[in-house]
């Protein structure tokens, strides 16, 4: 009997939860705010779904309801991706070590 591909996706999902669990526990508490902003940015990878929806139209149906929701989702996710990664970068630039022997 063949295994449903869903089971493979479920395996990826469950194992990723465990990876997330161990990786996040090793994040130093002083970086918890950047952690939140970067998780924000990466969860906006949901934009791939929005792009598929946005690209699905042809000349006649470019402004079908489905496409419009796709475009709006692209817009929202793009705010998050750029905003999330850049603000994380800006924060991380500020974490500096003590200047020694100066």
């Amino acid at each position, binding site marked *: 009997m063949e295994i449903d591909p869903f089971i493979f996706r479920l395996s990826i999902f469950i194992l990723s939860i465990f*990876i997330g669990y161990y990786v996040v526990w090793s994040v130093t*508490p*002083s970086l918890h705010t950047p952690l939140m902003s970067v998780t924000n940015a990466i969860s906006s990878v949901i934009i791939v*779904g*929005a792009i598929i929806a946005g690209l699905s139209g042809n000349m006649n149906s470019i402004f079908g309801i489905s496409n419009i929701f796709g475009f709006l989702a692209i817009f929202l996710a*793009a705010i998050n991706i750029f905003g999330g990664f850049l603000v994380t970068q800006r924060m991380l630039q500020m974490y500096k070590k003590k200047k020694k022997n100066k």
Partner: protein
Amino acid sequence: MSANLSATFYLISGVLFILALRGLSSPETSRRGNLFGILGMLIAITVTFLSVGNFSIGFSYVIVFLLAGGSIGALIAYKIPMTVMPELVAGFHSLVGLAAVFVAISAFLNPEAFNLGVSGDIKLSSLIEMSIGAAIGAITFSGSIIAFLKLRGIISGSPIIFKGQHYINLLLGISIIVLIYYLCDKQSENFFWTLIGIAFLLGFLLIIPIGGADMPVVISMLNSYSGWAAAGIGFTLENSALIITGALVGSSGAILSYIMCKGMNRSFFSVILGGFGGTDQTSSSKDKDKKPVKSGNAEDAAFLMKNASSVIIVPGYGMAVAQAQHAVREMVDTLKKNNIKVSYAIHPVAGRMPGHMNVLLAEANVPYDEVFELEEINNDFANADIAFIIGANDVTNPVAKTDPQSPIYGMPVLDVEKCKSILFVKRSLSPGYAGVDNELFYRDNTLMLFADAKKMTEDITKNL
């Protein structure tokens, strides 16, 4: 691009996202980690374009919306002051939630584009996955909007409670499940819209009763929800990058909520049920007025500090409100010139989101190796001369260790009372968010400095 090839690339971008989080284990590796994250996102987006392969008219619109959103995002990222990070993160969560809802709607209306069957006859598993994704996304959206408004102070930070609240929420939760069942059975559009509407409502009602001091938990929890919503959509789209990311973000938010709850010694459920931090719980005794309080001015504080050999700074949300982090760092610079040892002590729930104080101090150029977490520094208070408490309150209250009746009993607190003297910068004697009087105010070795945190700190620096 073949389906297998693009699936491989999605897997790579998922792995890059794992590395992005892994980088955050120390500040040195964190910047490279963030670059991994950006690279992962770039791969995911490019692969999506190539695998759809339609570069006709739709493509130009996609690019336009992408760039429009992107430039707004970039503008926000550069302009935003660090003190409003909690609001920003709450706002970003709401966008992820809404984007998830919109993607689910597109997929429902146009399943052909996503290979999910045809309209009116969508694969059962896909339908379940997209409705779960849409429901969690909607809850994340409206919940984050409420959190944002509470953090901004546009709606009151105190809990809003009404009778039968929890039953209504329970009812709404059950009706979501029932609706998903009927949606799968009938494939009717109306069920789908009702489902989303109810989920929006539930998001509002879930966050409304939660008080301002519990915001660190709420933000972490919504962070987690946004992850689960992304994972739900990931299952619908059969996209491993989304599934991996959703799982990572979901567990990350859950762990942060757990850490925050532990920092307040409260169970996750008591936070979710809300109502904490209201005015009705003030357990302070009536003889409050009788107790004498020693208050001083900047000169007194400066005098004490000059004669100290070690000082521990305890910042809290009040420092963020007063934007006093730069003033504090200037004061510390002056202290260091006088050969006084200074370190910072940060309670896990200081501020309005996890790690809030650390970011503010980093912004003010405080080196991160002078900043310590509660467990690292708590034993040092006994050997320190002065604890300088600025904008913190409940997290220093010794009543958490001594009075089992107190609502904050059992919460880990900073042992500031072990210092030789305590300088407490505060506007008034009002209790903190937990509504509990702080007995530190009335100690003999406490000097209250009633003033705006920033102004007082600047005045102390002048007198040093």
